[in-house]
């Protein structure tokens, strides 16, 4: 009776199941937002699979490295405290970078597909047949790179680092000096606070205009959103160079990429400490942040408008 064409087993729903009419419940905007965000997590599972995989990878590498750990720690006892600190913190920072890098890439590809995929597979017609506004939809999609991914990155990184510390400690059990050096130099609490600030401030808020731009292009382009997102930026830079022989646009993008603390040095900006040069107060006072957020709002408003007008591709 399992053949798909069987009229009995495949009968359309036939008799009323339930005749009671439930009173229409009022659904708050928060609840619609919550379910819209969950919907995004169902659709794009890479949002959590990628950082989990990166964390797993970091742990695997770290586990192998613990074989040499007692010897390395013993040698490190001879170094000065600064060097010791660097040596001990390095794998923890590396794990954090790996996870952060993976979610940054996920954020880019997520944004490019967010408003494009639903038009490509025509599912936009289904989503639009539900009482969820275009604004809620676009905001739920923007919240993924701006809020959800930083928080998720933070949680996964902290868990990874705790497991690393556990492995480290286990490997050094019975080795008093090395163990006290490890716990003396490693302050996971401090690192986590820095990381959380960095993720929310830089990856969330400071990079928000990038995500806004990508979402806008994803809602606009009929094909190849990646090219449409990248080429205009390149074109503006090239035209500026030819017309005025200046590189302001490129410098602006670089400054945006590098974070508020970086003047120009991209290499420097990739290390976490340099990003920490900016205090919370300075960050909140910096015009760059607010200009960036205003630009993001403009991009998102345009994306909302586009979603209203756009039809399936």
């Amino acid at each position, binding site marked *: 009776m399992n053949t*798909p064409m069987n009229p009995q087993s495949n*009968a*359309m*729903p036939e008799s009323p*199941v339930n005749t009671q009419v439930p009173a229409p419940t009022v659904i708050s905007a928060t*609840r619609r937002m919550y379910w*819209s965000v969950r919907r995004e997590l169902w659709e794009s599972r890479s949002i959590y699979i990628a950082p989990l995989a990166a964390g797993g990878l970091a742990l695997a590498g770290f586990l192998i490295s613990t074989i040499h750990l007692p010897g390395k720690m013993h040698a490190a006892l001879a170094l000065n405290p600064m060097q010791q600190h660097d040596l001990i913190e390095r794998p923890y920072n590396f794990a954090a970078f790996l996870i952060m890098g993976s979610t940054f890439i996920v954020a880019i590809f997520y944004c490019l597909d967010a408003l494009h995929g*639903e038009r490509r597979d025509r599912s*936009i017609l289904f989503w639009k*047949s539900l009482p969820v506004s275009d604004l809620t939809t676009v905001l739920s999609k923007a919240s993924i790179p701006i809020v959800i991914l930083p928080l998720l990155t933070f949680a996964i990184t902290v868990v990874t680092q705790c497991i690393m510390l556990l492995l480290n400690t286990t490997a050094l059990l019975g080795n008093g000096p090395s163990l006290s050096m490890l716990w003396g130099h490693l302050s996971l609490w401090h690192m986590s606070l820095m990381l959380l600030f960095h993720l929310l401030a830089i990856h969330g808020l400071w990079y928000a205009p990038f995500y806004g731009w990508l979402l806008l292009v994803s809602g606009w382009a009929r094909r190849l959103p990646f090219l449409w997102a990248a080429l205009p930026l390149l074109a503006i830079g090239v035209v500026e160079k030819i017309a005025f022989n200046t590189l302001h646009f490129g410098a602006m993008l670089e400054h945006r990429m590098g974070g508020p603390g970086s003047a120009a040095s991209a290499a420097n900006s990739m290390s976490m400490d340099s990003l920490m040069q900016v205090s919370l107060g300075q960050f909140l006072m910096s015009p760059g942040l607010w200009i960036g957020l205003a630009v993001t709002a403009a991009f998102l408003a345009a994306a909302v408008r586009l979603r209203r007008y756009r039809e399936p591709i």
Partner: protein
Amino acid sequence: MTAIEARGLRKAYGATLALDGVNFRVDEGRILGLIGPNGAGKTTALNAILGLTPYQGELKVLGRDPWNERDQLMRDVCFIADVAVLPRWLRVSQALDYLAGVHPRFDREKAQGFLAKTNIRHSNRVRELSKGMVTQLHLALVMAIDAKLLVLDEPTLGLDILYRKQFYDSLLNDYFDRNRTIVVTTHQVEEVQHVLTDLMFMNRGRIVLDCSMEEFESRYLEVLVPPEKLAAARSLKPIQERQALGRSTLLFDRVDRQQLAGFGEVRTPSIADVFVAVMSSQAGQAQGAAR
């Protein structure tokens, strides 16, 4: 009460007029069939009703302006589109969760009850289901929403005959009541003939026929005429003539039934035959067959 009211509804894509200033009204509790050839403007009309496309002219759906109030309107309107539009990654359980999460009129238990009668499991993803099952799923979701207006755009396209029949049967038996309104477009006209209460033909952005099924049945009659009475029957100006098995079938518009009974057996024509006749007589006259 009026479910849909359009006045001077117009929509142009570049130089093409998809809707050429149409006027129509659909009352609550009706099942309207919107019939027309490809490119007639049916889907554009439905898209305007659903707030999916901007338009010129006046349009009120359940008293709302669909373009500016789509999200509020969608609390009372459901929609199944021409092809399965459920996203392929969606699990059945997720669809139920999401609808229960965002739709104030969705009754999850009702949907589960409908699904229990199918082979669809809650753990299935849409991509794992056959086309017929996806339609069953969409219908189960939609029928569990206590909506006032249901819009169906070619809902049974590409389905086999069993699914097609079940689709309309369950819609009529389990869903429709006098408080709901259904608007359906389809090319499978013969399937909806017994379902409809109202009929609208469209061609090139215009409405060429707009009547209730009672009007349709009293207005259009077809007669099987034996050869010897053919000349006399033809003098009454049939709008269409068909030959089959040596007998002629003549289709008349607004000719007295008693008068026709003299020529042979009189019966109600199929919508499809009237449609073909109206469309071909359209060629000469601009808005000829319209009332």
